[in-house]
């Protein structure tokens, strides 16, 4: 039986409840929500004057009503030291979502830690230090002192290259401009750490190098372009699941207004199924290519557009580089860049050649080209908005494939104009503001391999759980555990020693191959099992947090509750580390180095914002952002007039492209020649195993389920990670729905739960990414591109049954997710 909350009544928000602006801290869309808080001893009433909505709540509310909230939107939280009632519900006045909630964001209230209702009791409340064989709760001073003493000793006896840092670079959640600045200032200004990586990839690098090298920021449109366009061209993305309200509130109105849609994806996604319902199947073209062949497909589409004369000659002449090669191919550039003519020398591919490579009919590729660029019957130009995400970013040949996608948009003049844009769809919100990272280098160090090779002595981890979200995870986990256990054993052996003796023991263990691990997170994560110091952080709304969404919409998501226990904003934790470093280094007599750690006297997250983001964007302050509410302002901010921040609706509307730093303002095309499997080991693995293991996302989970792993509604639906399979494949392997299975290849093993999916191709499976109960990364090989971008999406393995369905898995629904209307 499905999980039910058994709630038949909720407290009513009183008319005078406090109101806060909230941007959903999960996906990049950043839906607007409103938080309402009020004292425990008060409640609103059903009469209009007694409730926040001013409506009669003794009557049934109609569909899409503002005046309703679900039990998941209610909780009791701590605010200024007192328990208060809380409702967090979608904001009908936010242009991003217009009152729509997602299955993720509409559970924000329920996913708050509460002593009263017991939700999210997994949240970390105090610093923990490995002592006496367990993690002992302790004070910030004690924990930070140990972090600083070990770190300072290692980087001064060796160098800053012995400090390895894993740190988020995103907005929302625990990221945002405040926290990326705090960590960035610590590691890129006070220190020059180059051995660092980002939460979701094994190096410190861009996910879209080629777009930027070609002159285009990857978020260049406005969401409204989806409603103004003629064609939506989507590759390797599934927005109905993963950018839900961008799809429902912007793409669907476009489709209902007559736009067509081209979707490139090896499997039939829910976005395709829903788009067929909204637009009519005759207006949705699904190119179900063989995995990893997007580049060949894009090159054939570009060739068709060029040969048919559907390019935008005026735009190309005015805004793109005219003369051959501008940037040669080299170690930092996996393809040369230059004029369209130059790019075509590498990109030219016939429809028939592409049909053979991609496994789709040539006529469908031709039709895609026509839908993207063919003029209207009256000869007028067709508008097309192009979007892509993890299927491309974590796919085969990242640099050239993104380059090939951007080529099409440039050739057709679909950038900087209404109904255009060529953008990644995004995962988290953005919120990056850090000192320069040029010292990291390009290509950047492959950090996972650096650690596996036994290098590095101290590992600072900020809200990353590589156990669930890295590639080659089986090996990474084995080595990380072995190295951190060396240090744990040394600490245990030094029990009873002074701080100095314990630090000496730790450093000796590091010199013997050990790794000292500091984990900053909101929960005790899986990689946190290897930590020697665990520092509790807080999330958005437990602090004020600024981020921007996928159309560069900057908002202040306001603090409405206290941090859990003694947790702190990451920015202030980074400041604490810096201050402890300064003190310890001065004690060590290293005054010059100690001085580099000055400048962290921040009392609040707003101080960190003013020290970082505001210095580069002096118009933007908390007060002004608060006044801009949930609609915020689209970056870049260009001024402040009449009490309003002035933003930028879409980039490059003047036809000048600048992301690559070229003074001529000309965009570059990418000579993105097709070369088959780019990453090492992929072709061999494909040949050796029966199943392609596609890793996919589901709307119900946020990221690696760090909060959802303790959410009953979510875990009731999927008690184990789903592995969708064709029913005929299940029969052949003796699998029934809900049976547990394991996926095996040379990289490792992972496990999940069989879920029949008749729309899948035979011998392919779709496994949910990042599950705590089965990491798909275990079976992904270490192959990356020239710039250390991982190819998570291409992994092959064999499958065998572990057990019959458990009582939990036997009880869930295994029906198709496609709505039948």
């Amino acid at each position, binding site marked *: *039986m*499905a*999980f*039910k*909350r*058994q*709630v*038949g*009544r*909720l*407290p*009513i928000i009183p008319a005078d409840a406090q109101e806060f602006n909230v941007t959903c801290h999960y996906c990049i869309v950043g839906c607007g929500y409103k938080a309402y808080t009020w004292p425990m001893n008060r409640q609103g009433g*059903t009469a209009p004057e007694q409730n926040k909505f001013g409506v009669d*709540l*003794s*009557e*049934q*509310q*109609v*569909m*899409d*009503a503002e005046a*309703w*909230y*679900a*039990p*998941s939107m*209610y909780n*009791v939280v701590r605010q200024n030291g007192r328990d208060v009632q809380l409702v967090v519900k979608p904001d009908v006045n936010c242009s991003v979502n217009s009152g*729509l*909630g*997602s*299955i993720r964001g*509409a*559970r924000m209230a*329920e996913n708050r830690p509460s002593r*009263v*209702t*017991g939700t999210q009791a997994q949240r970390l409340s105090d610093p923990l230090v490995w002592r006496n064989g367990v993690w002992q709760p302790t004070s910030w001073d004690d924990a930070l002192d140990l972090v600083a003493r070990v770190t300072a000793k290692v980087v001064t006896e060796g160098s800053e290259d012995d400090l390895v840092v894993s740190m988020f670079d995103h907005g929302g959640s625990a990221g945002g401009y405040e926290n990326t600045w705090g960590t960035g200032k610590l590691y890129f200004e006070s220190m020059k750490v180059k051995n660092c990586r980002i939460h979701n990839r094994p190096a410190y690098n861009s996910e879209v190098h080629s777009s930027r090298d070609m002159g285009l920021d990857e978020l260049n449109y406005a969401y409204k372009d989806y409603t103004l366009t003629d064609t939506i061209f989507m590759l390797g993305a599934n927005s*109905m699941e993963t950018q*839900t309200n961008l799809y*429902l509130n912007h793409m669907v109105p476009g489709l209902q207004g007559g736009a067509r849609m081209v979707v490139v994806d090896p499997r039939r996604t*829910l976005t395709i*199924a*829903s788009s067929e*319902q909204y637009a009519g199947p005759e207006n949705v073209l699904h190119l179900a290519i063989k995995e990893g062949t997007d580049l060949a497909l894009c090159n054939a589409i570009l060739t068709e557009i060029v040969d048919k004369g559907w390019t935008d000659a005026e735009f190309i002449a005015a805004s793109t580089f005219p003369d051959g090669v501008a940037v040669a191919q080299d170690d930092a550039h996996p393809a040369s860049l230059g004029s369209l003519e130059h790019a075509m020398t590498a990109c030219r591919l016939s429809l028939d050649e592409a049909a053979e490579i991609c496994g789709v009919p040539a006529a469908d590729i031709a039709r895609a080209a026509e839908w993207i660029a063919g003029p209207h019957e009256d000869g007028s130009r067709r508008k097309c908005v192009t979007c892509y995400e993890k299927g491309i970013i974590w796919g085969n040949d990242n640099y050239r494939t993104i380059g090939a996608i951007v080529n099409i948009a440039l050739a057709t003049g679909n950038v900087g104009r209404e109904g255009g844009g060529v953008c990644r769809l995004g995962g988290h919100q953005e919120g990056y503001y850090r000192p320069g990272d040029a010292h990291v280098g390009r290509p950047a160090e492959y950090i996972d391999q650096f650690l596996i090779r036994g290098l590095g002595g101290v590992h600072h981890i900020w809200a990353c759980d590589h156990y669930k979200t890295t590639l080659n995870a089986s090996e990474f986990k084995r080595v990380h555990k072995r190295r951190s256990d060396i240090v744990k054993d040394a600490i245990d052996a030094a029990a009873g020693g002074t701080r100095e003796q314990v630090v000496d023991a730790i450093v000796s263990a590091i010199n013997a191959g050990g790794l000292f691990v500091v984990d900053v997170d909101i929960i005790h994560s899986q990689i946190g099992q290897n930590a020697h110091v665990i520092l509790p952080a807080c999330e958005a709304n437990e602090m004020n947090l600024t981020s921007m969404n996928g159309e560069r919409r900057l908002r202040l998501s306001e603090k409405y509750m206290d941090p859990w226990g003694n947790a702190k904003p990451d920015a202030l934790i980074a400041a604490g580390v810096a201050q402890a470093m300064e003190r310890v280094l001065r004690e060590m007599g290293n005054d010059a180095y100690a001085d580099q750690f000055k400048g962290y006297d921040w009392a609040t997250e707003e101080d960190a914002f003013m020290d970082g983001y505001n210095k580069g964007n002096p118009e933007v302050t908390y007060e002004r952002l608060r006044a801009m509410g949930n609609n915020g302002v689209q970056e870049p901010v260009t001024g402040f007039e009449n009490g309003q921040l002035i933003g930028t609706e879409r980039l490059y509307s003047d036809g000048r492209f600048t992301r690559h730093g070229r003074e001529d303002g000309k965009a570059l095309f990418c000579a993105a020649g097709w070369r088959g499997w780019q990453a090492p080991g992929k072709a061999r693995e494909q040949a050796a195993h029966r199943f392609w293991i596609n890793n996919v996302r589901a*709307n119900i989970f946020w990221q690696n389920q760090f909060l959802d792993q303790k959410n009953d*509604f979510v875990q*009731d*639906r999927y008690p184990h990670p789903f592995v969708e399979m064709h029913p005929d494949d299940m029969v052949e392997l003796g699998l029934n729905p809900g049976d547990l299975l394991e996926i095996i290849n040379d990289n490792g093993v992972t496990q999940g739960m069989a879920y029949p999916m008749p729309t899948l191709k035979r011998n392919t499976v779709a496994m949910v990414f990042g599950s705590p109960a089965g990491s798909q990364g275990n079976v992904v090989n270490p192959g990356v591109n020239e710039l250390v971008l991982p190819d998570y999406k291409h992994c092959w393995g064999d499958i065998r049954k572990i057990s019959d369905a458990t009582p939990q898995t036997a*009880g*869930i*629904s295994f*029906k*198709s*997710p*496609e*709505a*039948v*209307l």
Partner: protein
Amino acid sequence: MKCNRLVDVGRRQFLRGGLVATAGAAAATVVGTGQAQAQTALALVDYPANRLANIADLAANEPMDIGYPDADSPGVLIKLGNAVDGGVGPDGDIVAFSVLCPHKGWMLSYNAGDRTLNCPGHHSRFDCESGGQQIWGHATQNLPQFRLRVEDDGDIFADGVDELIYGRLSNVLA
């Protein structure tokens, strides 16, 4: 003294239990020893027991429109044709659900082919054979199911709901 501490521990666990339990505990603290509990202080929603239909009125896999707890809360009564967890009647196959999507309140439609309720607005769907579990969708709860009992004469009564119904902050309106 020891006894009192145990009581406190018990109460704290009770408070942790959830939203409804919280309301119950709050009510318990204001009711003094030996005092009768006032009607207005009831902790739980007081559901009516309404006759929805007789078993003889139902055909297998053909939903019947109903309203529960009142006419403004539309639902369906379905004899699924095969026994399900939570089903009532001699065949254990009779269930009833709200048909207001708990995402945005659009009216769900029944698909007899796979015994699901589907939302035309945003494509959420719910499995009538799995207690209204959301198969896929945007709602943050599974579909409210009406608790049923069947009398000896075949009359089917509803007397409870297991989730908050869309569009009302109290399942039984004031």
